[in-house]
């Protein structure tokens, strides 16, 4: 995976977990994280066109304000839905804790960047370097500094998920042999 991501922007000031995927859809698919189903409903509560426009390639980066993905729910459906329609990066002023962790754990890069909301308009093209945190607005020429993602987080993005990354690390270091102490039941 490249550490430099370029794309057009979809922007919304306040995005809660229940905006990314509605509570109804989440409950209907409690134990079913099917990207095809969830993707169709991405952001529908606040933008009915979101999924179709994203899949058409109108934009691939989300820019938002404070507390992206807030609302205190730990489910991962929203992240799966965003990835399914081709979102490759979320940049926000700040993130809710569960959303930040779920995004990285599921291989969707997220950058926290002070001032991003006012520096970018919907439809602008931006370029973000995940490893340095430098974000350039190619449309306006503005540049901002986000918190960069360290190397092992870039490794998680490359592997596609935290578990896939750790599985590969364990395989490489040869520490994945079974050594259960007790009997197998």
């Amino acid at each position: 995976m490249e550490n430099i991501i370029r794309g057009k922007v979809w922007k919304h000031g306040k995005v809660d977990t229940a905006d990314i995927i509605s509570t109804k859809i989440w409950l209907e698919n409690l134990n079913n994280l099917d990207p095809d189903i969830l993707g169709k409903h991405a952001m529908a509560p606040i933008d009915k066109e979101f999924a179709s426009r994203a899949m058409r390639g109108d934009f691939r980066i989300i820019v938002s304000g404070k507390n992206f993905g807030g609302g205190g729910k730990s489910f991962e459906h929203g992240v799966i839905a965003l990835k399914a329609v081709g979102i490759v990066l979320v940049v926000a002023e700040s993130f809710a804790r569960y959303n930040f962790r779920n995004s990285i754990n599921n291989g969707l890069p997220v950058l926290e960047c002070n001032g991003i909301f006012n520096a970018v308009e919907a439809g602008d093209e931006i370029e973000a370097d995940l490893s340095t945190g430098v974000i350039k607005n190619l449309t306006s020429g503005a540049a901002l500094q986000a918190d960069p993602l360290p190397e092992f987080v870039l490794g998680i993005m490359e592997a596609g998920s935290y578990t896939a990354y750790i599985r590969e690390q364990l395989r490489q270091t040869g520490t994945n042999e079974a050594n259960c102490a007790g009997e197998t039941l």
Partner: protein
Amino acid sequence: MPGMTMTEKILAGASGKKIVRPGEIVNARVNALMMTDLKGPYVFKVLEEELGTSKIRDGLDVVFVLDHLGPAHDIKSAQQFKACREAARKYGLPHFYDLGRQGIGHQVMCEDGYVFPGTVVAGIDSHSTTYGALGAVSFGISPTEGAIILATGELWLKVPETTRFTVTGNLPRRVSGKDIFLHIIGMTKWNGEVLYKAVEFTGPAISALSVSDRMAMCNMVAEMGAKNGIIAPDDKTAEYLAGWPEKRYDAVLSDPDAVYSHEYAVDVSSLSPRVSVPHRIDDVRPVEDVAGRKIDQAFLGSCTNGRLEDLMIAAEILKGRKVHPDVRLIVVPASRKIYLEAVRNGTIEILAEAGAAVLTPNCAACAGIGSGNIASGEVCISSTNRNFEGRMGAKDSEIYLASPATVAASAVEGVIADPRKY
């Protein structure tokens, strides 16, 4: 170069760095992991199926506690406990706490020597923030992240900003750490400025609090959306941990020039007991404003307020009195150790004489999946941490959150009552 807060210093140490700053992502070593009956079997499934290993990292304290479902009350909970026991046996877990020998996981972590100042401790439960009362960085994680800790002993973490609450004033009689916390969350509101942040409690009123009351406060920072709560270790912490003299730990303190994202000053010298009213934790009133509200049940227990001194305060109020005839008082010691001490010092006898139903240590009705749930239209005053709609039973029931003293006084009067009378 400005100084660091204790949360920043502990995360720097755990990730092998001299300095970390808020916003930075680090890969941190985790000293201990707590898991419960709700997610335990699933954690081992992720370990085996998704991470492709069944080896637990050496040097990691894995504490597996059966607490949420109580003694099995239906076939489903019996099956879940069976799956937990099988996993614990298969992995030969040395710190597996089965029924009758256990307690609520968070209490076991603190009182059985798995949490020390300066360490990083994770739990697969949102109230894992409790351990910050001993000067550790502790937080709740997902089952998948728990499996990653099992396999690697590490977890990526974002270094949080710290918000500091400096608490001053002599706490009035019958007013507790729980009341201080309810006052603070009523003041800041949920979804306020501490989301994803560290919450540090400091000041003379915090120094004056017992470790038990500090645990109640750090327990409830989860309700503010914070990452962790933390209190600087002191003589009381050392005394609490005196049972593990062989354990060497660093008392990590915040630098005097540490940078805080927000600072609040809270004076508690004239604080009255607080009550959080249905269905929002941050909807907090002085007890005077809600006194007289009729109750059906009083619940004293949980990882927030089921400790020995909580039971003893209730016994002080209930001694020589009876639980109101229209009310059930349910008392659940937070651990076997607490239960035993409360039996030995006569506390349980006083409570049972008064008409309390005393249960074996477990989470009981707190999360609505154990014993002691409430019916449609009923009202419960509870020493627990959440009063969401339907949390303890029927969707149209009501939960008022309060201190153990307020719960006990209310149990006597049959209505929400001011404990300062007793």
